[in-house]
């Protein structure tokens, strides 16, 4: 692929601007958060040009942003953030992605590493059978038409009502696991048909369940607010999204919005940036359907939480109360949200697109639960399965600068195909085992394509966000065992 040779003007050590003058038609400049060392690899692909393309969207304010885990995506780069005015701006499914509300949920336990390690194999096997995963996997819950509509409107609350988890879980889920404005009538029959057999499944690809151990704590008070007291404590991380339902919603609306663009006389430089005014009938329909898919994903993570708890109880033989396994937080990293920000001294209602980016609200933000009022919203940033993950908290600076957004993960360095070349699952499993990590995958090639080498080092990504002041590191956790979809 051609190298990107456009201008990156240094603002400071972690901020690089693409000036508006770079391409006529840009409504705002681009801004990439990165260290100087990262620039070379960022220039290796055309992701920066996608930051530029996004800057063409009508109604965009501030900058077209990219987090340090930026890599080439569809329309928007992965790691892209863009806020458009609700009043006269557009919403673009390309700014959300196919896996709507792909996200992560972190749970904490009272268990210690030395209790868990000897039972890891048993725990993973049970998680593997109790949480449906892999390509074409179907769920354990039968969902009828009426019930599907309930999932789409109520999200995680639907799952709690059915006995999967508790009210406390909702308290610490972004939007309490239910995005408002969801209208099941805006979701095609096809999307619902795809979602129905997959309710409560992990899926395949980069989705996973990971048992982790806290390795370092950087911010004691924040860690304590999250129920983490000490190094050696065991955590569980769940990464999944809205499955085929979300993919179908995205595909349906890219098609609808491409047609709508002609009617609204909007031109964009890339087909995957199909968009419509937020306030138009088409834009509103998309947001209502997207909210449904987001809710489906939250219900999904809620069901998986419940089944994971069952596994822990069985393997460790204690009550759930003793084990802990309480939700720390649950974040969406592929989503568009209507939020208010001050831009040039004016309070504006904005449509914030986060495509591979995590919401990062600071302490005292009104939408945070009491537990996090003092420390800020937990931001969950998984790394690859061979290294480590981070938990951080949002800052005021993120609100001022990046529409309350920060990075979402390590970011791929290598395509799935390239990662698999000459590498067998067994080799990857052996390398992981040498590091004390047990891995199970539902799909062939599932381990090889997710090997550490395929990803950037998440520590570098998080460090940039931390140094740039968009978030504050709280803790680092190491994997003990992984179930890959």
């Amino acid at each position: 692929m051609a190298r990107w040779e456009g201008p990156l003007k240094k603002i400071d050590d972690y901020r690089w601007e693409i000036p508006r003058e770079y391409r006529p038609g840009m409504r705002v400049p681009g801004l990439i958060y990165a260290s100087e060392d990262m620039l070379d690899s960022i220039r290796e692909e055309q992701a920066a040009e996608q930051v530029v393309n996004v800057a063409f969207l009508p109604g965009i304010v501030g900058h077209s942003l990219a987090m340090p885990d930026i890599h080439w995506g569809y329309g928007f780069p992965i790691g892209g953030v863009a806020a458009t005015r609700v009043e006269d701006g557009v919403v673009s499914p390309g700014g959300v992605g196919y896996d709507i509300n792909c996200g992560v949920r972190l749970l904490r336990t009272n268990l210690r590493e030395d209790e868990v390690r000897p039972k890891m194999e048993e725990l993973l096997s049970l998680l593997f059978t109790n949480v449906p995963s892999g390509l074409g996997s179907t769920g354990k819950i039968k969902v009828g038409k009426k019930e599907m509509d309930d999932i789409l409107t109520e999200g995680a609350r639907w799952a709690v009502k059915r006995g999967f988890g508790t009210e406390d879980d909702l308290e610490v889920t972004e939007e309490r696991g239910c995005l408002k404005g969801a209208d099941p009538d805006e979701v095609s029959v096809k999307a619902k048909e795809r979602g129905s057999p997959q309710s409560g499944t992990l899926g395949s690809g980069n989705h996973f369940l990971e048992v982790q151990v806290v390795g370092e704590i950087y911010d004691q008070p924040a860690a304590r607010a999250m129920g983490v007291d000490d190094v050696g404590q065991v955590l569980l991380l769940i990464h999944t999204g809205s499955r085929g339902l979300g993919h179908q919603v995205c595909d349906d609306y890219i098609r609808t919005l491409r047609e709508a663009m002609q009617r609204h006389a909007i031109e964009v430089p890339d087909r995957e940036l199909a968009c419509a005014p937020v306030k138009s009938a088409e834009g509103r329909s998309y947001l209502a359907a997207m909210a449904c898919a987001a809710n489906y994903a939250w219900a999904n993570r809620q069901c998986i939480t419940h089944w994971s708890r069952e596994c822990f109880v069985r393997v460790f033989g204690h009550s759930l109360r003793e084990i802990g396994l309480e939700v720390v937080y649950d974040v969406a990293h592929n989503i568009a949200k209507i939020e208010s920000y001050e831009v040039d001294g004016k309070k504006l209602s904005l449509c914030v697109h986060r495509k591979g980016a995590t919401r990062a609200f600071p302490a005292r933000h009104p939408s945070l639960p009491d537990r996090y009022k003092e420390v800020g919203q937990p931001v969950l940033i998984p790394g690859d399965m061979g290294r480590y993950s981070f938990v951080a908290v949002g800052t005021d600076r993120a609100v001022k600068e990046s529409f309350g957004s920060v990075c979402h993960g390590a970011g791929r360095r290598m395509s799935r195909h390239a990662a698999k070349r000459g590498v067998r699952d067994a080799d990857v499993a052996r390398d992981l085992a040498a590091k004390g990590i047990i891995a199970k995958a539902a799909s062939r090639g599932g381990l090889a394509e997710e090997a550490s080498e395929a990803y950037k080092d998440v520590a570098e990504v998080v460090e940039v966000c931390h140094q740039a002041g968009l978030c504050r590191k709280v803790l680092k956790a190491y994997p003990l065992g992984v179930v890959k979809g």
Partner: protein
Amino acid sequence: MKRFDVVEHTADTGIIAYGTDMPEAFANAAYGMFSLMADLRQVREETSRYVEAEAGDRESLVVSWLNELLYIFDVERIIFRRFDVLEITNTRLKADAYGEKVDPSRHKLRGGVKAATYHTLKVAERRERYSIRVIFDA
């Protein structure tokens, strides 16, 4: 003739499918997509589905066609291995697809494909040889 090549993309995977005519190129694009999902040598032709796709232009028709097949895969769990394109224009396609229900014990399932995308999508025609480039969100 080679049916398809795999192309590199950081986040995901794509293919370039070939054919001496449009029907063959479209059939090979579908074959290439399912090849990313499973080893098709182990898939039998036990059932078939009639598929129709429609779109505004030839490129978009590729996306409609492939996403229609992914929809059937998700809903009916049928993995397809042979495609008979019966009728095709720049905006419409009619085809029969042959395959069988997923059986994880027998099929070597690989990673999934979420969707065919419009990203760098291209249908090209040169000296009576057609090629379709399509990238998948995987």
